[in-house]
């Protein structure tokens, strides 16, 4: 898991949820954050895809609950993209 990916993902998630990045921990349950809903989660996913030029599979993203899990999926997609 790269620190750069973790930092970027945290910033995107924080921006969508209207939180400060430092208020989110890698294991924060995103479903429990006030104001989080499925549209905001999809918007995060869309922004992450744009930021890295990757396509995340629906099977990968539905069920993600923490930033650590999101980062792991992004790392996997980047590796897939680079072949």
């Amino acid at each position, binding site marked *: 898991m790269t620190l750069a990916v973790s930092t970027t993902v945290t910033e995107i998630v924080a921006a969508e949820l209207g939180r400060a990045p430092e208020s989110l921990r890698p294991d924060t349950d995103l479903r429990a954050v006030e104001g989080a809903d499925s*549209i905001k989660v*999809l*918007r995060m*996913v*869309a*922004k992450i*895809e*744009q930021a890295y030029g990757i*396509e995340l599979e629906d099977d990968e993203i539905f069920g993600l609950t923490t930033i650590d899990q999101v980062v792991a999926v992004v790392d996997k997609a980047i590796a897939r993209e680079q072949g």
Partner: protein
Amino acid sequence: MTAALPWAGRADHHCFGCSPHNPTGLQLSFADSGDALSAEFCLDKRYESYPGVVHGGILGVICDETMGNLIVMRLGVPALTTSMRMRYVGVVRVGGRYRCVARADFKPELVHATAELLDFAGSVVGTATASYKPQRSEL
């Protein structure tokens, strides 16, 4: 600045996405900002899916149309879509005002393009990625 497509004046221009002469089409018009091409749209019930909701396939047409026409305007030749993928983020309402913004990364063989669907407040309601194969000459 409103952007004119190469075939804008042709009598046989009947594109479902952008011809002003196709009464069943979307009649999109485009604005060129230099790094992107955009189209504003507000769709009525002819393009409805669930009550009050614009059909997702129509949103795919709008993204494809905007990305494709960006390439046409930059390269001067038609480009055929080879693949396209949508990510639907939020609901697009019948009667609502939205905007599609397309950008492209030009490579020698294939052009990779992206599009965003934005609501009036600028929030993303959908995104698209696609690849296009430019043709060697006009269709």
